């Protein structure tokens, strides 16, 4: 009886969770005139006009491509730098280790709004403005610390006897790390990649400031839907729905890792 009540509660919560997203989907399948003309719980006359417009207009779809490129670069950089560092934090004691760990975390706490101008100046100096790598590097500021934090948790869950045995067997550190240790924390790497992808994908302020046109993210492109006749709600809704798709694909691939991986690590 109690289990049923729980399940019903959970079902209601999920229904409420999906409602705003459903509403967006509903509107994306209608034309702007239809949306403003009548209130409808579902599209009576569904049309793909909005989606076709996005997929055929380069200024629209290039936003998605740009976002995917810099998010991927960011996830790769974050993982490759965070893996050895997380290993060091989970296995060794060294001068300034605790301070270093807390300093990394403090980088998540800086108010982005005022760091925008110094960021712009710094990246201009290096000639990186309007490149994908600039956004990827800027996002490392908050993703690398998080990656180190999560990976350290997963690595501490692996008994240290495994390292000791491998070193006694004559493994060098890089060989041990790649052939023995990485497979053990595979799930943790998946979960970390998911979080890096997510936080880089949803961030707007840095991405918008550091780009002009060549690397402009989709979230910034979406501010264009205001025209002389007012907002095109249908187009805006379609663009919004499409921003969920890449993330949904990523979760689909790591879903088993999310479940199992979280269970293995102490996070």
């Amino acid at each position, binding site marked *: 009886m109690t289990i049923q009540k729980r399940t019903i509660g959970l079902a209601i919560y999920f229904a409420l969770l999906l409602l705003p997203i459903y509403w967006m989907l509903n509107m994306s399948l209608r034309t702007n005139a239809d949306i403003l003309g009548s209130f409808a719980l579902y599209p009576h006359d569904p049309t793909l006009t909005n989606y076709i417009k996005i997929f055929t207009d380069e200024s629209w779809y290039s936003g998605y491509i740009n976002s995917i490129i810099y998010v991927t670069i960011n996830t790769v950089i974050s993982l490759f730098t965070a893996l050895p560092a997380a290993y060091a934090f989970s296995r060794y004691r060294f001068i300034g280790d605790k301070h270093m760990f807390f300093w990394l975390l403090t980088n998540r706490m800086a108010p982005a709004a005022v760091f925008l101008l110094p960021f712009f100046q710094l990246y201009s100096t290096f000639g990186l403005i309007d490149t994908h790598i600039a956004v990827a590097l800027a996002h490392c500021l908050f993703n690398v610390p998080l990656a180190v934090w999560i990976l350290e948790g997963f690595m501490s869950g692996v008994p240290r006897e495994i390292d000791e045995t491998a070193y006694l067997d004559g493994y060098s550190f890089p060989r041990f790390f790649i052939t023995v240790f990485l497979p053990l924390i595979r799930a943790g790497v998946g979960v970390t990649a998911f979080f890096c992808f997510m936080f880089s994908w949803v961030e707007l302020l840095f991405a918008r400031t550091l780009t002009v046109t060549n690397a402009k993210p989709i979230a910034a492109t979406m501010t264009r839907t205001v025209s002389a006749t007012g907002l095109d709600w249908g187009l805006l809704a379609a663009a919004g729905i499409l921003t969920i798709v890449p993330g*949904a694909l990523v979760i689909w691939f790591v879903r088993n890792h999310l479940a199992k991986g979280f269970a293995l690590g*102490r996070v």
Partner: protein
Amino acid sequence: MEKWENNRAWFLVLPVFVVVAFSAIIPLMTVVNYSVQDIFGPGQRVFVGAEWFKEVLADYRLHDALWRQFLFSGLVLLIEIPLGILIALAMPKRGWGVSASLVTLALPLLIPWNVIGTIWIVFTRPDIGLFGAVVNGLGIAFDHTARPLDAWVTLMLMEVWHWTPLVALLAYAGLRAIPEAYYQAAKIDGASAWATFRYIQLPKMRGVLTIAILLRFMDSFLIYAEPFVLTGGGPGNSTTFLSIYLVKVAVGQFDLGPAAAFSLIYFLIILLFSWLFYQALQNVGTGEKR
């Protein structure tokens, strides 16, 4: 278990240090530099010492924004943490339901922040939005663009909708890490559901809840894009949070000096509270162990 002592471990941390320092240290120094100077234009600047800090600390609009921010972050933590734990407790433990729940939960987290604001504008509009239409249909006059309370309710709904899944995901991870033997032992002792939660599940979730509380505190304290899109800080100044006010000063009035001093103070507040939360949660844990 003691960790091995080895200072060469620094070489492993070095890549992280380089990548983060590149984006962290130089901009931070620039901000410190701005905060003690009056800048008229390129090459024209005067050292003013702590003048901007005094000005910012005496600004009553900043005080208002700060209290609003504390109220907002406090409400966020009070609602999202218990709700997230409840959801995690109710989630299925095996079968197809696990994947389905995890994927559904993660959906709101993957939407860009300004799009979140857009979704809720659409959703709460009285003419074209489901929420706005239903609430008005029930005879309640609801308008988040005109009444401060309605604006707050809408923002809280959006915030809870957006971020509770993160707490639930982390709490679920913590719950899954508890070995089955603990539950069997509790069953043999005839422990009630509440006792099981209080003495087994809650202490075991300490690590993930520390992450959840810290992340939710930091991110809600820095919230910008969602309220900016949804309410623009209004009606009046009723939803002008710290970062919205900060951008008004920095970009709107282009007062770099005060804005820089402001952001350093802002940064220190977050740092202080994160540290306090971190210490408190660590101590709660050691108390339980004894």
